Every structure is written in C-alpha cells, then in structure tokens.
C-alpha cells in the first residue's frame, strides 16, 4: 500500500470522527445550558477552548457568543476543524484514495457534503439546529457502517482504525477536560452540588456513553466513576483505554509497527492501567493535558513510521 494512500485513509477516519464528535458536542451543549441554574454562566465559548481553537477563533471573531461559536464550529472554512472544513478534507482524501475505499462511501460523502452546504443556515440558527446536526451524525454513521460492512480487512482498514481511535482518544480527553473545567467554574459560584451531576451526565451524553455507563457501573452518575469509565473501561469503544488497545491491535497487522506499538503500550501503562481518579480538579486537568501531548506524539510516530517513506 502506498504511503500516501495510507496517510489519506488515516486522515479520512480522523476527520470523519471529528465531524461526528463536533456535531454531537454542539447538539448536547444546548441541553446542558438549559439544565444548569441561571446563575451559572457557562459559556458557549467553552466549546472553543475544548478544541484548543482559542487563537483561531479570536482571529475571526470578537464576540464570544453562541452564534459566533456555532458558526465557527460548523460552517467556518477558515477553521480547519469545522464540520464544513472537515467534510471537505474527507472528500478530498477519499477522492484521492478511491481505489481503496468502497464506491458507496464516495457517493455518501458527496451526498453529506451537499446536504451540509445546502442546509448550513439551519445549523447556525437554533430552531432547526438539532435536526441538522442529527442528519450529519447519521450521515457519518452511515459511512462508518458501510466501511465496517464492506471494507476488506487489509492495510487500509488498519489505517482507518488507527485514525479513528487516535481521534477518539483525543476527543474523549478533551470532553473530560471540558467537564472538569465547567465543574471548577461552578465551584466558584457555590452552585456545585446541583450542577455537578448535570455536567457529568452531559459528558456521558456527548460521548453517547450514558446508557452503557449505567449498565456497566451499576451506580448513579458520579464524577470519579464517570472519569474512570471514560478513561479505563475495556468495553466502551470511546474510552481512552479501549482506543489504545484497538490501535495496538491495528499495529499488529502492519509492517514495521514495533516502535508505534511500544509507544501505545507505554501510554496505556503509564496513563490508563493504574489510574485512579481521586482528584477531579486541577490535578486531573494536568493529567489530561499530558495524556493529550502523548497522543499527539503518537500521531507523529505513526506519521514517521508509515507516511514519510
């Protein structure tokens, strides 16, 4: 398999994952804001911070309000991670790897791109936003489902897995980080007790983890349990631990993978296996930050191993 094709397939998976998680994040955030007490001024701008887009945002907008934040995350082409830009990147990557991607996926990506372009305003205005985002999430799931059903389990498949799981691991840490920072914010206001549970539940929802959490953990939504579930659970496919294991498995079927696999296993050992979420404040944020840096480093290792032959 051509190195360049491997790289494009990997990025296709990353961008697809990014589109879905961005759409989910925005559609869940609406609900969170409705549920929190009015004295808690949790801002839409948190969504920018979660995704480390502060600098890019400030270059485009002055006012940090809902409309600008949503516009920036959904429809802004100057934001490389916006839904529109990510879709464009997916389309470009698939267009250049049509030889390894099922033809149906190419058609679905065209359809999703057309839908998004034609209905962009629905996403930005609040009244139909939920339907719009839902349509995008379903579009992504249709594509993933087709890949899962029709892709030969060859090298291209393993690069899809690598890309998807790396992006997921990264997104999960960012989502947890956002929840922790929201908690810290409410604590300042003395609204802590009422709000904590809402925030932790919201975190589970935005990762589509609420049902499985309850069934697996057999307890109510509590900070420590939620964080441990999202970091360590072996069965939940968006937990960081699960993503790392999947990546290690994908690596097993690829040539020259030993360095990448060693790094994946090292991260798992250092950050996941022996972790207990005792401190849910600043210490957790620092831990998540380090973990994110290691994940970025892993991307560089993947790139150096397979993409720059």
């Amino acid at each position, binding site marked *: 398999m051509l190195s360049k094709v491997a790289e494009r397939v990997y990025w296709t998976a990353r961008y697809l994952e990014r589109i879905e998680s961005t759409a989910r994040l925005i559609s869940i955030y609406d609900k969170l804001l409705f549920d929190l007490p009015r004295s808690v001024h949790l801002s839409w701008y948190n969504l920018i911070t979660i995704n480390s887009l502060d600098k890019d945002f400030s270059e485009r907008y002055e006012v940090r309000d809902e409309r600008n934040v949503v516009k920036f995350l959904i429809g802004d082409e100057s934001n490389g991670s916006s839904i529109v830009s990510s879709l464009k990147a997916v389309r470009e990557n698939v*267009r*250049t790897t*049509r*030889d390894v991607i099922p*033809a149906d996926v190419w*058609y679905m990506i065209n359809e999703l791109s057309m839908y998004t372009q034609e209905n962009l305003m629905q996403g930005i205005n609040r009244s139909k936003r939920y339907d719009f985002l839902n349509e995008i999430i379903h579009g992504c799931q249709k594509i993933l489902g087709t890949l899962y059903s029709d892709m030969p389990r060859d090298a291209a498949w393993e690069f899809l897995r690598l890309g998807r799981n790396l992006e997921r691991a990264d997104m999960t840490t960012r989502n947890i980080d956002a929840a922790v920072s929201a908690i810290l914010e409410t604590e300042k206001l003395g609204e802590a007790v009422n709000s904590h549970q809402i925030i932790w539940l919201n975190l589970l929802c935005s990762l589509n983890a609420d049902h499985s959490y309850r069934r697996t953990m057999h307890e109510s939504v509590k900070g420590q349990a939620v964080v441990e579930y999202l970091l360590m659970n072996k069965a939940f496919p968006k937990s960081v631990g699960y993503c790392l294991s999947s990546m290690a498995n994908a690596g097993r079927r690829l040539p020259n993978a030993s360095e990448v696999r060693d790094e994946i296993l090292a991260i798992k050992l250092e950050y996941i296996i022996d972790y207990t979420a005792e401190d849910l404040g600043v210490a957790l944020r620092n831990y998540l930050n380090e973990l994110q840096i290691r994940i970025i480093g892993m991307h560089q290792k993947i790139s150096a191993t397979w993409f720059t032959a």
Partner: protein
Amino acid sequence: MQEEWKNYDPGKFYDELISRPGNARKPAKKLFSYLKSLSAEDLAGRRQAAEATIKAMGVTFTVYTDEGNIDRSWPFDIIPRVIAKKQWDTTAEGLKQRLQALNLFIDDLYHDQKIIKDGIIPEFVLKQSVNYRKECEGISPAFGVWAHICGTDLVRDSDGEFYVLEDNLRVPSGVSYMLENRSIMKRVLPEVFETVDIAPIADYPARLFDMLCSLSPRKGEKPVIAVLTPGIYNSAYFEHAFLAQQMGAELVEGSDLVVNSDNCVYMKTISGLERVDVIYRRIDDMFIDPDVFHKDSVLGVRGLMRAWRAGKVALANAPGAGVADDKVIYAFVPQVIKYYLDQDPILPNVETFLCYDDKQREYVLANLDKLVVKPANESGGYGMIVGPHSTKKEREQFAELIKANPRNYIAQPTLDLSTAPTIVGKHSPEPRHLDLRPFILQGKDTYVTTGGLTRVAMRKGSLVVNSSQGGGSKDTWIVDTDGESK
C-alpha cells in the same frame, strides 16, 4: 411530447437521430418512440434526476479560472446519440488501421526515418516538430508501439460519413466520462435499456489493464501497474482516479516514485519500496523527468527516462509519441497508412491545407472567412479561429500569426457538423452540433471502444465541444438493427 418532436428540425445538417421532422433514423426508432411517449414534465424530471446523480457520483472536471481551480459537475444531456452497429464496425476497423500505421510511423521516426528518406514527408516538418524528442531515438518499446492509448476525434459531415478531425496521442482524456455517462443513463432512463439492443461499453478498464500488463518488462510475474497523475489540480484528475480504481492500479504522483541506481522505478509504500513495472502516465512529456526535460518540473520523477531507456519500466504512452499528433503530420496520415500498411485508408481525413506551402497558404489567407485554422500542436480547442464565426479584426490578426509561423498552422473547411436533439434550458429539444471521441488501445492487440465519448456544443450554432469551453456530453449508443424488420 408528440408536438414538440414534430417541430424539431435540424435543417441542412445531418442529424444523428432524426432524418426529417417527425421521423427517426432506423437505429433510433425505438428510442424516438420512447422519447415521444414522455411528457415535457417527465423529461424535465429525468433531467433533474441526471443532475442529482452526477453530483452524488461526484463526476466532475476541473476548470482553471482566475480565482483558482473549480470543480464543476460534468455536463450531460440525457438524450443519447445513436449509431448503427454496421457503420460503427467499419469505423472501428478504420481506427485500428490508423493507429497501427501511426505506431509504425512513430517507430520509424525514432529509428531509420525511412518515410522521410523515401520523400513521403518533408524533412523540415519533422525537424520543426515541437513534439519530436531526440531523447527517444533508437529506443524500441514493446511490440514497436509508442501510442498505446489514442483518442481520435471524429466528426460527421452533412453527407453522414465520419471523418477524422484529429488524433490525440499524448494524454487523451474523456474515457471515464464515456463510462460514467452510461451509468448515469442506466439510472435515469432504465426502461429504454429493456427495449433497445445497446452494445455494452464497460469492458474498457479491463482492456486497458490487460494492455498495460502486456507491456511489463518483468515477465512471469504479476506486473505492478501505476497511473501517474499530476494531482488533484489537473483538469482530468477525476479520470485518473477513476481509471486507477477501475483497474485496481495504484494512483501515484511523482513524489510517490523514485528511480534507484539499478534503473528500476519504485513506489513508496508502508513496507518500503516496491517496484513498478508499467506506468500509465497522464503527465505531458516535458514534465515527466526533470533530469531530461523541464528542469523545474515537480510533477515528474527524476530518472524516469533513464529507467525507461534501460527497459526497466514501460511508459504508456511512450515519450515522444506526440510527434504524430502534430496537425501537419495529420495531413499526411492517408499517405502514412499507404506507406506502412499498403492499404487505402478506411476513414477519410478532413481536407487540410498546409500553411507552410506557398500555394496553400495563399488560398488559406484569401479564404479565412470560410475556413477553420488551427495551430499544429495545441489541444483543447485553444488558439484556433472558426472563419464564419470570426470578426474581420480577428481574421486580420490571425493572418499575421500565420505569416509569422506558417509551419505551425493548418486550415480546414468549416464542416457542417452533425447535430442531435439536445435539451437546452427549459425548452423543447433543439439541434446541437457534436463530435465523437472513440478510444483505441494498442499493445499486443488492438481494441476500440464501442462508440466513444460524444461531446456537444451547448450553444446554438457553436462548433466548440470542449468541456472547458461550455461543451456538454451525451451517452453514445451503438445499436444493432440487423434482424429487425424495416
């Protein structure tokens, strides 16, 4: 739509479907009665369906504009163009004959140049040919074939006969659109495929693949085939990706390949370097190897010519093959066929005046308002003048160009290109001019596509069919009417 079809009148032109108002030609009869059965709304609905299908299938071509490169949806007209199988079979023989002769000719030019020594073609024509590559002299590609893939433009004049307008032997494009047009057609007008006996066209990618495999320098092993593209900004990128996918070949850019000291070409893969045997290159000669041609080309591969000369990789088309699609050479093709094959050409050329010849140039300059004048080595319909559609000022400017560089210009009478009913805007079908580009393959064997890509000039009266200049396209049906009662 009964009434609208009665009013359809192509006038003095040969129409591909309609012989006289209200009457279809024999191979188009079934299609015609089907089209008549559709209401205007029905037809409009099918047309919209076609547009939506093209978007979903992502069939695009890239246009270069001042604001950058734009991907446009492929323009397609849902009324097909129909040709009788009998006539097509003869035409296909003519195309094979032509390409075989052209390949013998190119091989001769890079070896003994007998045709020049024997006085058939003047030496200066070759000396001044911008597509003659000295670097290719003495090379003997497999089967003596240089132009493996040829797209020949055919037009039908008012007499209903096919004429060859030009041969494209460098990197002809369009075949993917021919294939996609058929897929679109099947989705949009499925009923008609049940009643009309339309010859399938889908085997082209397999034939192309087999032809490319036959060129492999490594015998006994499954060859590795790559399609070399200049990248996503090229106007034909869609086609490069499409063909690679259809053949199961690797789609590569120059940066994916290296030539090592063993003169072999390798591609960069996730497990290291892997040898490539055959490259279907969609990059012009001058850009394929910065060591030999344009030094600043970033599209090509350093050392590719060295690998090719050493016989370690096959290139299709071979470098230097474009020497035969010089339009001055075109004028000599009937003699070329006679010279190498000792046969009369099956397909006629369009009458051509060579401006380097004093007498012919005099005639051309005196009749610019009636003629089409083309530069010898342009493609895509650029740099030409259509006399009857030009202004006096344009003709004066062109006359200067011709006088300054007579070798570079040829002229042809303005043909009455055939028409076919085409849906334009919201109106009833109107006649529009069209041409036909079949694709011919030559490796060990020779193959011609069943029909080809029909291109339509969408503007009324226009003869310019190039998609970069507002042209559209149609599905092309070869229909067998033998055994049917009249």
